[in-house]
Every structure is written in structure tokens, then in C-alpha cells.
């Protein structure tokens, strides 16, 4: 039960097969023995099905349903836990119908709720829950357990939220009061307010998970793409755990969806970074991204909004970038341009480049995140620096040792297709680059 509780499960029913009469099983078309013989009891696990926006980047990696993933993982691990103790067990997935089989066959192989219905299970309600089942040869008297961490009305503290987020895999957690919104940050206007997502929002919770430099260095590549997807999924799961806890206590809580690629130019594209700044996780850089002290801009972010009032963290003061504008200098799309008042971002050009990479299955581009010298992770992952990135971008890496280019190019040559040549309407201003000013001239 401790394992299931730590994995986010809310309710557990343990139902011996003796509770399930053969007639009722037959009426429901339920036959555990037809799937796997010798079942002595079932564990049915339940988690409330809360509304969440789908993760755009995960589209090709199979539909990622965070609630089902939580349940399937817990059921799989329970089955293995029982196996390790000598009780053969196997888990059945939340959706037993099969995405490819829907067209032909709409009846799932197994309905998790049937067993609860037949056993009239201990009067426990499973409404609004998703369920997952473990078949096991363990015998037992049967039991019903609620594992929820908080009682209604007892709201989790900031510290409790931090602990749970870190236990669920987030590396950093920050809090901001919605009163911190209003007025631009680093030249980027606030076109969205947390109350646009949740009308009575009072606190914004930001979770961050780092991306490793050696992998971002391989961008654009399938490994770089996978890394971002996996960090996003991990944060989705951590955020879902928080949503379960906060809503169990009676608070309203919603997640802010990540804009899909086609809308990456929309105002929502910078909402996560700005929320991270206001929650004290870092400063906004010239590339518009949240620069954290530990990982520079190499973090995935997840934002939650709640009507629970919690003390906000203090935003960091000062400027992280100083005279550096490597992101603008090396942007392959020329989407970042130094102007008198800072940096102008051409979202359309950025999107054009990312769409090109998407066609070759290696989106995101991430160059402005990849080359950024900010972050203590630059010390941990000794290796590439500005000279290396410049040489690569200018095509002069021949003058430098083959490492690390050989490794990057090796990785890039698998799992994705060659990228179409960039739009020639952008050209690099070599004189400006030589003078250290950076940048790309718009020849349109």
C-alpha cells in the first residue's frame, strides 16, 4: 500500500475471486481465467480522472494520457512487487480496447468496473475514476483502502507541495501570487493573465525539470526531441499528482496547456517562462526564455493555477545576459535581433524553422537554449562552449578537434531525416559577426 500511495493511487479494492459468482461473471462477459488462468484475487486501483489538456509534443509517441499512465505504472509495479514475493501477477491496462482494434471491435477485453459491480464492492464509489486491475494468485480476505494524502478542508502547505513535486520527479518548484502579473517582463508584454485560465486563480505553481547539455547539444535530433518529451511527461505526472492533492482538499486547480507547434508564436508561448520568473526560478534572457541559475534555459516547465492562497517567492533581480547575445548570433532562422531596447523576436521565422525540423522528425530547434552560456550545468558538463558552437554554425569546425562534432553528427544521422535547407531569404551578416555584434540581416 505504501508503494501504491507513493505512486499516486487514491483507492484500492482487493477482491478475492470467491466474491465473484460464476453466474454474474458470465452475465458481465467477464472472465479473468480466459485472459490468464489461476487468478485467485484482483486488485483494482482507482485514480480520479481530472480534465487535462493533451501534451502536444507527445503526439507521435502514442497517446499520452497522464491519468492512465499513473494507473498503468502503479498496476505494473504492483504486479512486479507481488511477483518478487512469489505470487505470480499481471496487470491489465486502463484501456483494454486497443486503439487499432476500435474500428473492428468496440468491446474491451476487460472492463475494470465489472469486478467492482459484481462484488458490490464494499459500497465504495468509483464514479469519476479511472481504474486499472492486477490479476494475482495471491489469496486474501478482501479489503478496501483509501490512500488519499489529505482530508477535505485541510489544504496542503507550500512545503507539502514542494515535497510531493520533488518526490514525483520535479527538480525545482516555485510559487507566485497572481498579483505579481501586470506590466511587461524583459520587454515581453503580458498578454495573458493567470485569470484567463482560471478566473479566481490566486497562486501560480511552476515546476521545472532540467535538460542535460550533452543531449541538448545533439539538437536537432531524435534524442534531443525525446529528452524534451520525457521531461514534459514527467512534469505532467508530477502536476497531476499535485492536482489530485489540491482538489482532494477542495481547492480549484488547473494546468496551463503547452501551445502546440503551430501556435508557438502565440502569446501563450512565453507564459510558462514569465511565470517561472515571477515564481523566483530565474531571470528572463534575451532569448525570451527563463534562465535558471542551475540549468540556464535548459529546463522544461509546467504551470499550475490554483485558488488556494500561498505565499509567493521573490523574483530574482538583475540581468543574466550582460553583453552576451550568442542566442541571436547563432539563431539559424535569424529570429532574434538586437535592437536599441533589447531583443526583437520574430516569432514567424522561429516557427518556420521549427516547422521545417518537424517535417524531418527532429523538432525542436532549441538553438537559443542550446548555446546559452548561463547555468551551473556548464561546469558539470565540461565541453562545448561559444567557440565550438560558433565554429559549427559557421561551418569551420574542420579547424577544431573532431570531438564533440563527430558524436553530435553520429546521433543526428539516426532517427530523423535530413533537414531541408533553410529559407535563403535570411542571410548572415558576416561583417557584423566578425565585429562581435552578431546577427542576421533581414533581406526580405
Amino acid at each position, binding site marked *: 500500500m505504501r508503494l501504491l500511495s507513493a505512486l499516486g493511487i487514491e483507492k484500492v479494492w482487493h477482491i478475492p475471486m470467491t466474491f465473484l459468482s460464476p453466474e454474474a461473471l458470465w452475465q458481465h462477459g467477464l472472465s479473468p481465467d480466459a485472459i490468464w488462468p489461476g487468478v485467485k484475487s484482483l486488485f483494482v486501483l482507482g485514480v480520479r480522472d481530472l480534465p487535462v489538456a493533451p501534451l502536444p509534443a507527445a503526439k507521435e509517441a502514442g497517446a499520452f494520457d497522464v491519468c492512465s499512465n499513473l494507473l498503468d505504472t502503479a498496476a505494473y509495479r504492483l504486479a512486479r512487487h507481488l511477483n518478487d514475493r512469489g505470487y505470480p501477477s499481471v496487470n491489465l491496462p486502463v484501456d483494454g480496447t486497443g486503439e487499432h482494434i476500435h474500428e473492428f471491435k468496440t468491446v474491451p477485453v476487460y472492463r475494470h468496473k465489472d469486478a467492482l459491480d459484481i462484488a458490490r464492492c464494499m459500497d465504495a464509489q468509483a464514479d469519476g475514476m479511472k481504474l486499472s486491475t492486477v490479476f494475482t494468485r495471491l489469496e486474501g480476505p478482501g479489503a478496501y483502502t483509501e490512500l488519499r494524502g489529505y482530508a477535505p478542508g485541510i489544504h496542503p502547505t507550500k512545503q507539502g507541495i514542494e515535497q510531493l513535486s520533488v518526490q514525483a520527479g520535479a527538480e525545482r518548484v516555485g510559487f507566485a501570487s497572481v498579483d505579481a502579473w501586470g506590466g511587461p517582463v524583459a520587454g515581453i508584454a503580458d498578454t495573458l493573465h493567470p485569470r484567463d485560465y482560471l478566473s479566481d486563480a490566486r497562486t501560480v505553481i511552476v515546476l521545472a525539470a532540467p535538460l542535460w547539455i550533452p543531449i541538448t547539444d545533439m539538437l536537432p535530433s531524435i534524442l534531443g526531441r525525446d529528452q524534451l518529451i520525457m521531461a514534459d511527461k*514527467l512534469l505532467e505526472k508530477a502536476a497531476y499528482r499535485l492536482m489530485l492533492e489540491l482538489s482532494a482538499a477542495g481547492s480549484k486547480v488547473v494546468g496551463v496547456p503547452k501551445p502546440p507547434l503551430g501556435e508557438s508564436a502565440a502569446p501563450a508561448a512565453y507564459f510558462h517562462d514569465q511565470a517561472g520568473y515571477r515564481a523566483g526560478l530565474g531571470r528572463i534572457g534575451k532569448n525570451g526564455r527563463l534562465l535558471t541559475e542551475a540549468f540556464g534555459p535548459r529546463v522544461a516547465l509546467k504551470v499550475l493555477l490554483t485558488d488556494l492562497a500561498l505565499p509567493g517567492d521573490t523574483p530574482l533581480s538583475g540581468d543574466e545576459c550582460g553583453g552576451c547575445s550568442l542566442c541571436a548570433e547563432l539563431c539559424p532562422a535569424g529570429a532574434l535581433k538586437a535592437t536599441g531596447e533589447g531583443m526583437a523576436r520574430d516569432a514567424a521565422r522561429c516557427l518556420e524553422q521549427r516547422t521545417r525540423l518537424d517535417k524531418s522528425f527532429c523538432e525542436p530547434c532549441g538553438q537559443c537554449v542550446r548555446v546559452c552560456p548561463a547555468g551551473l550545468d556548464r561546469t558539470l558538463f565540461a565541453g562545448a562552449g561559444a567557440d565550438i558552437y560558433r565554429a559549427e554554425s559557421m561551418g569551420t569546425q574542420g579547424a577544431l578537434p573532431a570531438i564533440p562534432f563527430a558524436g553530435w553528427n553520429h546521433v543526428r544521422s539516426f532517427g530523423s531525416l535530413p533537414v531541408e535547407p533553410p529559407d535563403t531569404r535570411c542571410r548572415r551578416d558576416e561583417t557584423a559577426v566578425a565585429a562581435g555584434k552578431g546577427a542576421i540581416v533581414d533581406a526580405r
Partner: protein
Amino acid sequence: MPDKETIRSFAYGLGAGLVGFGPVERYAAHGDLPAAFHPQNIWPQAKTVIALSVPSLLPTTETKVAHLYRSQYHNTNSLLDEIAYRTAAYLNRQGCAAINISRDGYGTGTLQIKPAASFSHVWAAYYAGLGVPGWNHALLTPQYGPRHRLVTVLTALELEGDPMVENELCTRCGACARACPAQSFSGDPRAAQSDMDRFACMGRDRVGIYAHCGFCIKVCPIGEDRVLYDRQNTAHYAKEAACVDAWSLGLAPGARRWV
């Protein structure tokens, strides 16, 4: 600096079934792969590979090619990436540089045109002592045979290697070759590995409900999981092949038990 046992128990706590350590020097010493595929080439700081495995539970694996296995496949994939990413994060927090290589690396969009990856988790797990590649190119482990899935963490931390599995586990019974619906395996049965037609394998793999075919791991007689689930008799698998094509037309139920 965390030691091997600390890292091992951390990974077990996240759900890993098998954890092994291999110094990167073993790649050059054994010479199984071209240098471009060695961890040091992919990431120059790498000193040790940490191989992580989670089992594909036998009763679910037996339902291949049905949906239950597909679901288990996606579920173990996300668990693998989570274990590897969080193990790397743990090492990085301790000041030992580490990265995780995602569990797949083929790329969903290019699988049929480029059925190869930049890094092999199978060979990493071999050098880390988890098992031996079998004739079907999957890593056979004493615990699960080939019914498990792999992921790798690379670290700059130098750790003593676990002993490699020296004896062959594959008995060259040929069950994998006979069961393969795409006839992907051919070559000398006495060779360490078959000649595998990856294009045939992947081409078949992506057709309809065939996705995540995996007959070659389902029918393999190796692995202690067969004792746990009381499925040591593998003769009945041979009968299935006859009806395989009917399933591909959508006549299959969501799952079946094969006896």
C-alpha cells in the same frame, strides 16, 4: 560520490528490475561495435554505462500481437525513460555528470526507412553484465530471457564493472526464427547472432495491429519468468502461427490466451 549499491537501490526504488554497471573501456576491448557507437564518442565525458531493465510480464507478452502487449510496451517505455532520467538527475545532483539515452532512438517517423539507432542499449546491457545477446539480437537475461526492455544512463563517474555473463544463454533452438511472421532471421544457426533483416522486421512491425510484434521474444524458452508463471512448455506457440494472418484482418479480439 555515490557508490554502486546506492545507485542500484535508487534505480530499484524507481522501478528498475535489473541494474548493471560497465566501464566504457569494455567497448573497445570486445570490439563488437564500430567506434562511432561507443559511449565515449557520443559523449566524451562518459566513463561508465549503467544499464537498466524492466520486465515485460509474460502473460501480457503472450497476448502478442494484441492490445494488452501494446499497452504494456508504451507503459514500460515511459517507465524506462522516467527511471533513467531520474537516475541521471540524481547523479547530477551529487555532482557526477550523467545523461540518459532515451529508450528508443529510432524515431517514430523514420522507423521503416532507418531501422537503426545511434546507441545500442542491448550492447550496453551486455557490457554491464545483465545478459548476452541471443540469436534473435535481443538481450537474453537469466531472469526474463528476452522479455524485458532496456535503457541506459551514461556517467562520468568511474565505477567498477559488474561481471559480464560469460556463458551463452541462447540454445539456438530456432523458435524465434520459426515464429517470426516476417522471416527476418536467417544465417548460420551456430553463429553468435542471426543475419537479421531489419527492414523486413520493421515493415511487418508497423502494419495494423502487428505494431510491436515481438514474437521472437514471446516464444523464447529462456528465462526464470517461465518458472514463476508456470509456462515452461513452449510447444503450443508453434500452433499459433497458422492463424496469424486472420488477426491482421481485424478478426482478433483485444486479447487472447494461447493454448
